[in-house]
């Protein structure tokens, strides 16, 4: 059974239909890269899966549970699916460690000591245990994004959504973040990531989704999508002729 089942999902903003019927099934442990031009709807799709945008039609099932737009169902969903943002969105008034502890304590009611142990473990996992007491504005962009990953992991999600997580980073900081993601993939975490890092998508992902004008235009293993693009739109996007 697929872990995330996206069926005929439609979304519009006013007159603008951004998603025109999306179908994707993601198996446990899969790493999916979503590529496409800006405005193709790829970020909106991720945001729908996390319930940050409501869908107008179709259905999204995560681990068999339907995504419904009420607070109880949303909370249940978000405990299963973590999200990493382009702009990190760390809480600026809390230290790195506290960032990772907060939602464990207030959402899962984990006792403080336990939450701290988990926070240290997760920060260690992204190589930032020594930054436990640092505040976000004392960290580089790459470090902030790694803390954001640790923060999401501390909720023990069964899947992670990554929305252009390296796009706001200086080029020399991209690799430290991608290395963490690569490790997660190797450990079997289910990942869906919108990305512009084609080399990373080719090396790490199990499947690549090419989105174009609100539809899944092509989908397949990276070798196929990158090596043998079928549609002119994908060829143009990849710059092969």
């Amino acid at each position, binding site marked *: 059974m697929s872990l995330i089942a996206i069926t005929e999902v439609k979304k519009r903003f006013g007159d603008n239909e951004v998603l025109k019927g999306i179908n994707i099934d993601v198996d446990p442990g899969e790493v999916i890269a979503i590529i496409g031009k800006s405005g193709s709807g790829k970020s909106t799709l991720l945001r729908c899966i996390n319930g940050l945008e409501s869908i107008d039609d179709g259905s999204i099932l995560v681990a068999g549970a339907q995504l419904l737009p009420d607070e109880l169902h949303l909370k249940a969903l978000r405990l299963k699916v973590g999200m990493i*943002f382009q702009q990190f969105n760390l*809480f600026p008034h809390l230290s790195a460690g506290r960032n990772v502890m907060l*939602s464990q304590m207030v959402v899962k009611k984990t006792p403080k000591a336990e939450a701290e142990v988990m926070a240290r473990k997760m920060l260690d996992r992204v190589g930032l245990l020594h930054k436990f007491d640092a505040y976000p504005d004392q960290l580089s962009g790459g470090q902030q994004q790694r803390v954001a990953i640790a923060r999401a992991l501390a909720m023990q999600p069964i899947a992670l959504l990554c929305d252009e997580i390296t796009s706001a980073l200086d080029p020399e900081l991209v690799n430290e973040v991608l290395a963490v993601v690569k490790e997660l993939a190797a450990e079997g975490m289910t990942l869906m990531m919108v990305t512009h890092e084609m080399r990373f998508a080719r090396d790490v992902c199990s499947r690549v989704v090419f989105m174009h004008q609100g539809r899944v235009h092509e989908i397949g293993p990276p070798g196929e999508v990158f090596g043998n693009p079928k549609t002119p739109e994908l060829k143009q996007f990849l710059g092969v002729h």
Partner: protein
Amino acid sequence: MMEFSTWDILRNLLLAARWTVLLSLVSFIGGGLVGLLILFMRIGKLKAGRIFARGYIELFQGTPLLMQLFLAFFGLGLFGINVPAWLAAGLALILWTASFLAEIWRGCVEAVAKGQWEASSSLGMGYVQQMRWVILPQALKVAVPPTVGFSVQVVKGTALTSIIGFVELSKAGTMVTNATFLPFTVYGFVALIYFALCWPLSKSSQILERKLNVAHRNH
């Protein structure tokens, strides 16, 4: 007629200024509490609460404080009690202060980046948890300078309570003027005392604001 020395004038004014200070404190603290209530209605999830809060703010910011004082004074009088001036003054100033503080604080809550709401949502937090742990702590920091700045308006606003007969600094100024026929000196002193109360508040608001801006630039 009694002779007033300059010191007599100043001493009488300073004694009355205690009431200005006290009324300012009561109005500011009371207004802060009511303002919080209005704020939570204004940004809350309940539509009726939002509409009420908007109406409240529009009404108290869109009409003269002097009229609000008159209405409190004569409105409370309708209940048959003989209304002491301090009660009407305190009530009107609290309600008036609340409308401004609620609106100032709403601006601070809305100034918190949208990504903070999204990140805390994606971690499974509900509205109240987001407010309590993520949004308000950040809004609070931004809110300090304009809140201190508004306290100046509260101090100045208390001057109007002299018109409904509350004896504070301004009323004392009029009374002393009537006794001494020295309006230039007396109102000059009155102005200087208000200035001595308000200017430190204005200045600290500016300094806090500047500090905050410097801190922000480091992000």
